[in-house]
């Protein structure tokens, strides 16, 4: 097939990101030609600020060098500004006469700095702060001249002022508003910021309107004169008073524009062959000036250019950060508030800390932090995920640490951490290496950090911290998304929810069908998506979808737990934690017979045989003659019990028998993540039912059911679901909740995270209010479990998966 021609005008961050996304989806569909007015390949514009201060250099901020374009067969015209689009003939023409034909055109022309219409604006020494050329001019001026005036006290102006001061200039910031950053801060916080910057040698003139830039004898700018007649010396004037979408080219060629190139939700302009992306765009009347939304747009455009046609651009909250080393300022979402919004503020001018949180309808919608931004990432996540906050309202201001977070996830101290402090305990990655990778490799997402540094790639408990570091390094450009919006892995753009839905709606019953139906990018997926999809298949279509052992992690393939030295551990099931002399004798005999180095009582009320050789597993299972404890699976693990009314003087119910019955009832249940239960005989709760996925506490008049507890990485107390009277009700209500979780949770999402995502109200609707629905859920669970057998018994009988346990050897097989 002949390739289509794609031409892109504007070689900046949004445009090139679109090409990257497109090449991931379909590397072959287009012949691509790119025109860029600047003489450079794609660089990270955001980092011009640290380049100006001297903290980074230009080569360090390149995102894609010219070799990248060559490697992908992209024709690159640098230093060529497109001046005409002939939409009839579908040709673009650059100022130097170069032309290119297109089938699809992508406009990514960014924006232009706004220039104040004052006399003297074209004088030598008057610059804006937008591109490499501007930065070079400023660095040059700083070497030769003394006085700089920055007009504009917004983020960009302050970063420019800070950079010029770092290069030794005497800098005055002129601002029309009453206080600095009047779009991010209120008066109190702004005054604190101004103090800090004054201590660093910057001067400020507020509520000043520039009247004229006055030339000196050399013709270069020499001073700035204000409306009130005052004048300050200036050998360099930086105008940082705002940006305007750059749409003149589009407008001239007859594409509908209204303060930006007008696009629909698919980023298409009024000419269906022409797409637009980035700061030049006006989407539903809004233009954006931060990269995070632009990168979201890039994904949408790529999806449509690749003819997938399913993505829509939906604006999400954005966050910003002032990139001045030593000044911590962070704002996100709607930090200005307004009608129907509540404000929670904390102000400590002496300690230099100011925090403002904006709440609307029980949700956090905006945050503005000064001085202590450690919790910025957490607030940003709450804003984007739209969590209800009534339960944590009191602690909200104190930060995530105050919510009683023991793990790294809540240890939001990214700013204060030294470079050699360890962030990821699993892979031994320290903060310095993460920061370095983010800066050198131009990373914007936690996934990219994972790939490049391994941080957060194992147990994941430090993901929050990594997110924080990312936000600290690249500010609002950090692409942090809740899991429900993230693509499963690099093989697809679809998220877990979308894949699940497709499997159900399109009745997909095998991995191969799923990959084909959903246009997977790889032939057979990867180690992240295959186990997830295998689970979605077998849980959606029990008895129909065939389990694929090759898409399961080794533990679930061989029904034992791999150890660091490649041996395995064996944990037989002890129903409800109850055993007997004969079982114990068999365990002892097995340990002797197979030279098992360690026998340990687990935290789950049963016994672990550690260090078993793989080839011995089937024999060990046969000799034990006990069912699998599934201690290795995303499945039912243990049901812990206490002694209960049969023996305990306080016991009100027979918790032991209840535990045993539940464990039999749920035996063999595969689930999105592991599932643990416990049953206590009275509220003293000796079996720790309060931190289990399903916890049951016997009381005089029946049983209380709790759900969504977790005793692991981050301890979470289970929430009260309901109280029931009978044994059978315990079975049905527990089973119905677990089936709902099995049907709706994302792979690796434990009950607590599922519960937080959908909310307790929803669970109550489905499990309590709707009796017929509850019974159906429980019936579907029983139907699914009817296909499950004890995996150990199946394998000891031979036949099943023999190849897993028998090694090859040269002697035996040559025959």
């Amino acid at each position, binding site marked *: 097939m002949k390739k289509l021609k794609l031409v892109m005008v504007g070689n900046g961050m949004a445009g090139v990101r679109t090409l990257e996304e497109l090449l991931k989806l379909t590397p072959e569909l287009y012949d691509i030609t790119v025109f860029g007015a600047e003489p450079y390949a794609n660089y990270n514009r955001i980092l011009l600020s640290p380049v100006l201060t001297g903290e980074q250099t230009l080569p360090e901020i390149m995102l894609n060098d010219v070799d990248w374009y060559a490697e992908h067969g992209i024709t690159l015209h640098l230093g060529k500004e497109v001046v005409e689009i002939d939409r009839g003939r579908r040709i673009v023409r650059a100022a130097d006469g170069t032309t290119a034909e297109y089938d699809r055109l992508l406009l990514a022309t960014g924006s232009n700095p706004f220039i104040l219409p004052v006399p003297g604006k074209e004088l030598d020494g008057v610059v804006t702060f937008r591109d490499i050329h501007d930065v070079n001019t400023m660095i040059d001026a700083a070497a030769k001249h003394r006085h700089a005036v920055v007009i504009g006290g917004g983020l960009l102006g302050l970063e420019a002022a800070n950079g010029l001061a770092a290069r030794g200039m005497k800098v005055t910031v002129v601002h029309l508003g009453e206080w600095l950053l009047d779009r991010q801060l209120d008066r109190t916080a702004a005054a604190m910021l101004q103090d800090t910057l004054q201590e660093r040698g910057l001067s400020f003139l507020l509520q000043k309107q520039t009247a004229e830039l006055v030339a000196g004898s050399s013709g270069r700018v020499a001073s700035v004169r204000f409306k009130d007649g005052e004048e300050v010396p200036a050998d360099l004037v930086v105008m940082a008073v705002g940006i305007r979408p750059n749409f003149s080219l589009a407008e001239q060629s007859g594409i509908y524009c209204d303060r930006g190139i007008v696009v629909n939700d698919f980023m298409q302009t009024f000419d269906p062959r022409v797409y637009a992306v980035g700061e030049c765009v006006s989407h539903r009347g809004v233009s954006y000036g931060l990269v995070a939304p632009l990168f979201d747009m890039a994904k949408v455009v790529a999806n449509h250019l690749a003819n997938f046609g399913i993505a829509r651009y939906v604006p999400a909250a954005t966050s910003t950060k002032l990139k001045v080393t030593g000044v911590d300022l962070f704002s996100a979402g709607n930090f200005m508030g307004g009608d129907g919004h509540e404000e929670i503020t904390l102000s400590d001018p002496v300690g230099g800390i100011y925090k403002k949180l904006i709440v609307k309808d029980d949700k956090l919608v905006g945050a503005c932090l000064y001085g202590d931004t450690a919790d910025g990432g957490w607030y940003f996540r709450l804003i984007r995920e739209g969590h209800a906050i009534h339960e944590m309202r009191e602690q909200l201001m104190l930060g995530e640490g105050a919510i009683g977070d023991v793990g790294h996830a809540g240890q939001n101290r990214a700013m204060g951490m030294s470079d050699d402090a360890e962030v990821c305990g*699993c*892979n031994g990655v320290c903060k310095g290496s993460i920061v370095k990778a983010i800066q050198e490799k131009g990373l914007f997402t936690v996934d990219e950090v994972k*790939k*490049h*540094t*391994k941080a957060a*790639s*194992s147990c994941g408990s430090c993901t929050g911290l990594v997110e924080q570091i990312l936000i600290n390094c690249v500010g609002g450009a950090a692409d942090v998304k809740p899991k429900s919006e993230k693509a499963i892995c690099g093989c697809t753009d679809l998220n877990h929810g979308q894949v699940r839905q497709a499997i159900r709606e399109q009745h997909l019953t095998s991995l191969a069908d799923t990959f084909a139906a959903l246009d997977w990018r*790889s*032939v*057979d*997926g*990867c*180690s992240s998506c*295959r*186990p997830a999809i295998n689970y979605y298949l077998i849980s959606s279509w029990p008895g129909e979808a065939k389990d694929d*052992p*090759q*898409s*399961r*992690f*080794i533990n679930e393939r*061989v029904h034992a737990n*791999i150890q*660091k030295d*490649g041996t395995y551990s064996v944990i037989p099931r002890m129903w409800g934690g109850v055993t007997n002399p004969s079982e114990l004798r068999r365990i002892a005999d097995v340990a002797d017979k197979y030279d098992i180095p360690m026998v340990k009582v687990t935290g789950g009320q049963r016994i672990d045989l550690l260090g078993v050789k793989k080839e011995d597993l089937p024999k060990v299972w046969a000799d034990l003659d006990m069912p699998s404890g599934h201690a290795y699976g995303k499945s039912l693990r243990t049901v812990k019990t206490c002694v209960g009314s049969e023996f305990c003087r306080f016991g009100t119910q027979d918790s032991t028998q209840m535990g045993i019955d539940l464990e039999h009832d749920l035996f063999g249940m595969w689930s999105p993540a592991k599932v643990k239960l416990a049953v206590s005989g009275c509220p003293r709760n000796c079996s720790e039912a309060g931190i289990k996925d399903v916890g049951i506490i016997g009381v005089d008049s029946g049983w209380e059911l709790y759900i969504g507890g977790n005793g692991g990485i981050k301890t979470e107390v289970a929430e009260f679901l309901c109280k029931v009277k009978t044994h059978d009700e315990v079975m049905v209500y527990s089973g119905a909740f677990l089936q709902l979780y099995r049907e709706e949770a994302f792979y690796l999402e434990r009950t607590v995270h599922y519960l937080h995502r959908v909310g307790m109200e929803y669970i109550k609707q489905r499990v309590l209010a709707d009796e017929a629905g509850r019974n159906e859920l429980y019936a579907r669970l029983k139907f699914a479990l009817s296909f499950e057998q004890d995996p150990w018994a199946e394998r000891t009988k031979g036949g099943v998966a023999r*190849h897993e346990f028998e*090694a*090859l*050897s*040269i002697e035996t*097989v*040559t025959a």
Partner: protein
Amino acid sequence: MSRNWKTICQLNDIPAQGARVLKRDDGDDIAIFRTIDDQVFALVDKCPHKGGPLSQGIVSGRTVTCPLHNWNIDLATGEACAPDEGCSGHIPVKLEAGAIFLALD
């Protein structure tokens, strides 16, 4: 140089997207992999990271994911995929008429 090819097993002794181990008394164990499209590869059964048994990993495309800490190893070269670095040695292997041969020294 002619190679000392040894028959090891039949293609069907290894599940597609799977692996088997060849135990050796006089050297490291060898992992023999079969991909979804029936290509066959052999690596020393030792992850360059901390020696994890690659034969126990998940095979997808032309890589295997180590079961211990999820490094991805290229089956053809034994090299760890970026950003990880390191190499498990690879052993020449051929598939003829449904039988798998290894070139062992």
